[in-house]
């Protein structure tokens, strides 16, 4: 009887407690924001480039008569019908007749979709380009956005500019959804998580300015000038990094598993479909086409390369979400992912996409490597103290703040 009682007491309850503890540790242990700072710089540079490239084609992609013109995009976001699958086993009526002229007009516009059959219409979307269509004003706003991206990249007023940067980037995406591709998707994901986390807390102008003001204040108050310290460990930094890591795993898992639906990914020929597409691959380069021809002339080699490439892709994409959490496997998986995206950049021409994927991978880089990187940067960022030595540093300075206590806990 007492055994049963102890099982009931310790079994589920202990499991629940350890699960809560694990959840807490995973999501809410304070983390160094330096990785977010590095990611902000990398992402910011790519975002800046992507949007500078829009400048010449602003009207073609965002203007009133763009490829997806204003009339169409407004109809999509305000009127597009969304149908729901039936809640029971009854067959859904395929079509309904129009009751009045309003319904008839709607049906003409949406190829017979009766508004009464729609679960909902449109979708919520924000874009400044829905509201501003005058070319001069569009260019002024576009240039302002470029300035925001620049401020975000250097980490100036990052709390504000990170939000503005996302609002600006999403404006382009929502306005012209048919011109976006994987690169925009990854850019958006990065901007969202860099907005959530304190991405300006390290490697930023904000931090330099803050340091400068602190020193100035200490001098004015005739206090001892405080030493430069590493950025504070922050819970929000960990939340943002973890969210990014989990989202990255979703991307790889979905990409890998969905490939298993296709026969070419089973018979090992899928890679050929990415190596020989005229529109994406560098087929105007003579040596590249010569290499393809050489491969084709030696079937055993062709089959080995194609099957090997397919196995590599599937292993990397499906294996990454499981193996990257293992400390011993982490660098190996990161290296595989870097190789995969280098291949995508070189062969398929998706260079900015790959740069953003590299940026995402920084979220998985171990803290001690970040510390080494910071040491390498040295005085330039205002600190040379790695986190492993932070507890000593903190105790020697006699600081008592909550964050500092957390830092010591983590460091220990």
């Amino acid at each position: 009887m007492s055994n049963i009682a102890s099982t009931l007491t310790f079994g589920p309850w202990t499991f629940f407690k350890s699960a809560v503890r694990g959840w807490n540790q995973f999501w809410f242990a304070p983390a160094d924001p330096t990785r977010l700072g590095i990611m902000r710089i990398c992402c910011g540079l790519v975002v800046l480039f992507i949007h500078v490239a829009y400048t010449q084609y602003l009207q073609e992609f965002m203007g009133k008569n763009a490829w997806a013109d204003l009339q169409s995009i407004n109809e999509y976001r305000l009127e597009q019908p969304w149908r729901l699958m039936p809640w029971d086993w009854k067959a859904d009526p395929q079509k309904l007749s129009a009751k009045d002229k309003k319904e008839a007009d709607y049906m003409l516009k949406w190829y017979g979709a009766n508004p009464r059959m729609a679960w909902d219409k449109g979708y919520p979307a924000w874009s400044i380009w829905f509201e501003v269509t005058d070319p001069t004003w569009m260019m002024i706003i576009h240039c302002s956005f470029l300035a925001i991206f620049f401020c975000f990249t250097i980490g100036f007023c990052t709390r504000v500019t990170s939000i503005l940067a996302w609002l600006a980037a999403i404006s382009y995406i929502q306005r012209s959804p048919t011109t976006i591709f994987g690169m925009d998707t990854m850019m958006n994901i990065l901007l969202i998580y860099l907005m959530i986390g304190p991405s300006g807390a390290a490697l930023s102008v904000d931090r330099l300015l803050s340091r400068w003001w602190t020193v100035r204040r200490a001098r004015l108050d005739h206090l001892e000038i405080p030493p430069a310290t590493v950025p504070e460990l922050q819970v929000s930094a960990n939340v943002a990094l973890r969210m990014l890591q989990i989202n990255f795993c979703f991307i790889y898992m979905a990409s890998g598993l969905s490939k298993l639906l296709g026969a070419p990914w089973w018979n090992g020929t899928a890679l050929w479909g990415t190596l020989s597409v005229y529109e994406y691959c560098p087929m105007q380069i003579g040596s590249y086409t010569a290499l393809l021809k050489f491969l084709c002339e030696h079937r055993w080699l062709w089959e080995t390369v194609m099957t090997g490439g397919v196995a590599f892709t599937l292993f990397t994409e499906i294996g990454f979400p499981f193996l990257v959490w293992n400390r011993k496997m982490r660098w190996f998986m990161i290296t595989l992912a870097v190789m995969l995206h280098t291949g995508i950049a070189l062969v398929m021409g998706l260079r900015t996409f790959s740069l953003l994927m590299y940026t995402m991978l920084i979220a998985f880089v171990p803290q001690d490597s970040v510390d080494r990187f910071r040491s390498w940067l040295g005085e330039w960022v205002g600190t040379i103290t790695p986190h492993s030595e932070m507890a000593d540093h903190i105790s020697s300075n006699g600081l008592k703040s909550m964050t500092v206590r957390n830092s010591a806990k983590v460091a220990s």
Partner: protein
Amino acid sequence: MANKFLEFQKSRFGGPAMTKEEKPDARSAATAPNSIWAYIITRLSDRTGLSIYWLHFIMLLAGSLIAFSASEGLRKIGCDSAVLLFRVATVLSAVGALVVLLPSVGRRIVVSLFILFHFVGILTAVTSVSPSPWLSTQIWTTVYRPYLYFLWLNNAYHFYSPQPGPANLLWFCIEYESDSDGTRNFRWVLIPDWDDDGHPVNPDGSRVFSGTEYTRRLSLAEYTGSGGGVPWDLYQLIGKRMEKGQLDRIPLFDPRILPYDQQYKLPDDRSKRWIQTYVRHVAATFKHQNPAKEHLPVKTVKFYRVLHQILDPGQIIQGMEPNDTRLYYPFYCGEFDKDGNYSDRCVRTGINSEGYFQWEVRDPYLYWIIPTEYLIRHAQGAGPEKVDSNMRQMPDNAQEGNESEVKR
């Protein structure tokens, strides 16, 4: 009252207190805040004596009120997208103001719930693409769609799945008003296009600024190709197509290379709408290539969605070029006026007397592949009229019946 509230907050939350003296994380001069924002907040805290949490609460509440006022102001001038943004900001700021007052455990619970909500949403986005589970589709449609669309996190990440396919291209044939002497005026717009060195170029012949813009143009074409499947009346469609083809001397594509059922690709309704949209852009943007005829108004636009087939290893060994015209499969997707409406001789749409939508296809070529060697004949006609077009002469591999060939 204020003291009571302070005591309640201390006993209830065990965390942030109202005044600076009671703050557990009061900073000394020895610590440097991480950012300007932290610095400003610290200074404000020093000046006002309020804790950082209360300062955040007050600021977020004020932000919420400002965002609400802005949304109301914008609503009056009809900026619906900006109204939406400010309403979201209102709610987020108000919720944030409440959350900062919660004790540490409460904040963690709120954040945990948000994380769960967020990633269940991502999971529905990933799994609601066909073939998808019923549950996922229903949850995505009813719960997550607005959230995911607003953040644009709706991607299923099914890259190159189920298999890498050929690239989609957009080919438009614009016909302008004819000259007084009967000369018919055409301009072909190919998206994307390349120069003789293989570099991507704009329709005016200038080089594309970056690979990003080039890829964006390739993305445009992807949205015209959803749908497909073999139609139930395929045999009737083949019959009509052959009959018309015999009259015009435009035969079907060789079924030994591509079976008949794959020579017909019906786009879904969404793709049809995007095609109409693109046609409007082309008609509004591109003038006739002859400067003397730039003023001519657009009469019709024919659109072809082109699948550029991938070379197989055997073709590479045979020496076939990747841009060989035989590798281009143009699917004819309709003739439109400058406003993107189907021309009467192509498709007639309307609501019949019983109130049902009617879609009457009048052009037997619609959604069929047109062999490239007959493309010019199909688009520009093969009559005795004079033609002013930006096409070159027919290539060596073209067959009988061609007057010219698509520029490649």
